[in-house]
């Protein structure tokens, strides 16, 4: 009896759903209908966006997932786009769904040299007098490290030597500055 009614409703509201659509797996957890303008929470629970939006507005200061009470917010839900959903204009639904979020993949060539920062820590520890020099060294170091991949299979020994020399040079400069500050 229930099965017959369910398929009838799914056919009326959702269009061409397969027989598996009637088992409740794609029902909104709030209105218990086939989810319209579907969004899914980070905890994996499915809702109609209008239903979830109403709930979030009801409990503004305590936004939790209706099913599992995990933290939930407008920015933390993902809209689901089925193949046929583009036929209907979701913007006609109020309130509009939050947009999908795309993150660009990280490009190796343009990564920030933050990883190398550990190497230059030594230079940073001279205190106020040596700080600009340490910073300078770190910039140089950064350049050297970045060039390494382009050197191919043999990572340049020369860069290493340069590094060491620079390191000594700036260590000397740093000590000099510290002594100068102490004497002044």
């Amino acid at each position, binding site marked *: 009896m229930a099965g017959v009614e369910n398929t009838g409703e799914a056919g009326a509201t959702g269009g061409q759903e397969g027989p598996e659509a009637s088992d409740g797996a794609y029902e909104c*957890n709030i209105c218990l209908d086939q989810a319209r303008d579907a969004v899914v929470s980070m905890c994996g629970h499915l809702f109609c966006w209008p239903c979830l939006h109403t709930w979030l507005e009801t409990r503004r200061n305590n936004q939790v997932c209706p099913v599992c009470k995990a933290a939930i917010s407008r920015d933390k839900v993902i809209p689901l786009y089925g193949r046929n959903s583009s036929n209907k204009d979701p913007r006609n639904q109020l309130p509009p769904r939050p947009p999908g979020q795309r993150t660009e993949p990280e490009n190796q060539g343009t990564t920030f040299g933050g990883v190398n920062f550990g190497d230059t820590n030594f230079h940073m520890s001279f205190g106020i007098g040596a700080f600009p020099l340490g910073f300078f060294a770190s910039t140089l170091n950064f350049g050297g490290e970045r060039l390494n991949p382009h050197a191919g299979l043999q990572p340049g020994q020369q860069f290493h030597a340069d590094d060491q020399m620079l390191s000594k040079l700036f260590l000397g400069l740093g000590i000099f500055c510290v002594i100068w500050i102490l004497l002044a």
Partner: protein
Amino acid sequence: MRRLQKELLNLTTDPPPGVTVDPEEIGDNLSEWTVSVAGPASSLYEGETFRLNFRFSQKYPFDSPEVVFMRPNIPVHPHIYSNGHICLSILTDDWSPALSVASVCLSITSMLSSCKDKKRPPDDAFYVKTCNKNPKKTRWWYHDDTV
């Protein structure tokens, strides 16, 4: 009110153990239901039957239903007052629109199951004299998860 229709259909076709609902008793607008709950097996309430009154506001399911036990048979329980009001957090603060009549009935059944000592709440006489008719107007203080 489509959701209430669905709930009523589910509750009549696939009710939780001990819960029965007679659709004939429920008016056409579905805003007030009477649900029977049997005292759970091997509990202090085995063999008893209680009737719960559910009232749904226009905002249901975003707003919790008003649920009270109906006279004459109100279970003697440390969280159930003699006027039928129930101290149960999901009926106010912890309500969620993913809960349903079935899940409220289940919670109440479990509350009855875990009861070790049939007695009224300590402040029963005072509360019943002073409370609002609507239990949702009471500022409940939920402090005991054991029963």
